[in-house]
């Protein structure tokens, strides 16, 4: 074998284990559940192999599923909005602060290392019937017995915002950090107020970061089922909870396949629209 041929083959030898793993453990399984979603669940014994549209018909027309899907998108949208509202000023402050930038950034990375389930359940200590807030209100005499603050849609959104906020701040930070501060100074020296300089120069330039953070928050928020299980009531199920129910509780795997593919299609469409207009590079910038 010539040196050149070896040089050409070497990267493929290095790549093959990882590519093989992704093919075997993700790509082929995804194709497999496409097929599986056309099978039927049998009352006894193995699922019926074949080409049946029943699961898809139910997934697409059942009003309950549609309600949960729309509600999931609504919850994800509200979550994303609050992440942006809380995250943008914080990211702006970190970019422009002089002394303690490193510490602020390090603190910002910290939540990524703190377990999701612990951050989610931590709100029970704050809002639970014997949590910090109720105890304080009672000792101040504002209320006489604990109020039920947990297990509703608002606490689900609260938990999601708490979980996803770092993703938003980090993406906006990456974007803001790449903007030359001289631009804003130039705008003010030409007569713009600082607010004008911000809204007409800095804000538009940081929109890619805001969009990337928004996409991450939306997609991660819309795909969760743990937060509603911990902080939501029985009526606050999100779409991923339907998938979990179908697969784990009802053992209806064909239906579960159809539902997870529907979720993938809806969120995939969003990512595709984003990719069409902004490209994927902004996203990997924030992740790396």
């Amino acid at each position, binding site marked *: 074998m010539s040196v050149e041929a070896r040089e050409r083959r*070497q*990267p*493929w030898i*290095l*790549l093959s*284990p*990882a*590519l093989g*793993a*992704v093919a075997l*453990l*993700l*790509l*082929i*399984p995804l194709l497999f*559940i496409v097929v599986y979603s056309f099978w039927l669940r049998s009352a006894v014994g193995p699922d019926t192999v074949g080409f049946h549209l029943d699961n898809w018909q139910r997934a697409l027309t059942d009003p309950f599923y549609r309600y949960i899907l729309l509600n999931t998108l609504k919850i994800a949208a509200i979550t994303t909005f609050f992440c942006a509202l*809380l995250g943008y*000023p*914080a990211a*702006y*402050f970190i970019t422009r602060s002089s002394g303690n930038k490193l510490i*602020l950034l390090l*603190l910002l990375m910290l*939540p990524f290392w*703190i*377990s999701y*389930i*612990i951050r989610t*359940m*931590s*709100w*029970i*200590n*704050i809002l*639970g019937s014997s*949590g*910090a807030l109720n*105890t304080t209100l009672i*000792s101040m005499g504002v209320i006489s017995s604990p109020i039920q603050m947990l297990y509703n849609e608002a606490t689900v959104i609260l938990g999601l915002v*708490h979980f996803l*906020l*770092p993703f938003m*701040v980090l993406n906006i930070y990456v974007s803001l950090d790449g903007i030359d501060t001289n631009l804003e100074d130039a705008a003010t020296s030409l007569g713009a107020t600082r607010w004008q300089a911000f809204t007409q120069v800095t804000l538009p330039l940081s929109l890619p970061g805001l969009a990337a953070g928004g996409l991450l928050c939306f997609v991660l928020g819309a*795909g*969760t089922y*743990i937060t509603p299980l*911990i902080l939501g009531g029985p009526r606050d199920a999100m779409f*991923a909870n339907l*998938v*979990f129910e179908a*697969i784990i509780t009802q053992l209806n*795997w064909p239906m579960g*396949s159809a539902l*997870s593919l529907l*979720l*993938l299609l809806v969120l995939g469409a969003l990512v595709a629209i984003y990719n069409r207009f902004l490209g*994927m590079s902004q996203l*990997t910038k924030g*992740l*790396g």
Partner: protein
Amino acid sequence: MGWAAIRAYTILVYLFMFLPVAVVVLLSFNQNQFGSFPMTGFSLRWFEALWNNDAVMRAFRTSLILGLLTALISTTLGVLASLALVRYRVPGKNLITTILIAPILVPEVVLAVALLLFLNWLGIGKSFALLLAGHVIFTLPFVILVVQARLVSIRRDVEEAALSLGASPVQTFFSVTLPLLMPAVAAGALFAFTISFDDITGTLFWKPGGVETVPTQIFSMLRDSISPEINALGSVMIVITVGLPLLGAAIARRLAIKRGM
């Protein structure tokens, strides 16, 4: 909005991020037997209770073994792939990169369902093997992103020098490339371990009945009510997943200073 207002706002945002977690740690030292407010005194009784809780200790062992194996496999695959992508001219590099990070582009629930159903069809039902496969595929993209970012900054000419001085490619890799690569490898492995140790979304789909990892153990304990033991377990997890990377970074810095870099 003035600068002072933005500063105050940012402080509130940071409080929002960290206060609930701080309360978890605070309450885990609470003497009060219901583990709730008001704090009645300092006590280590809940940590002791954890130590004597067989289910929790079993979950810890499972999570540790799973995390270590995941880190080992995922880092090996990830470092090899990153080397190929950074060091060679590979046709279709963008497509390959997209495929390799696909496991985090797909919602984890969907990945969990697909993997469970496919491997079950192949005869691998809910088992430790399925858990391991799931954790490897889910952590692989993070490892590749982290390692690739580090690799770009390592200069090639050192390797070329070794090769031109007569070292074989394999010798060069183990005595030149790998030592230079170690910080990247360590960062990737740490990342994979932490993500595996924290994962619950996929784990709940893949774990066989009766087997718990620390997060699923916390989850099942939460179903009853929040006990002080859960807060203590949370504190231990925070120490592991936050302390370990900090310790790693500190050691890396020490070594770098020693070497005069």
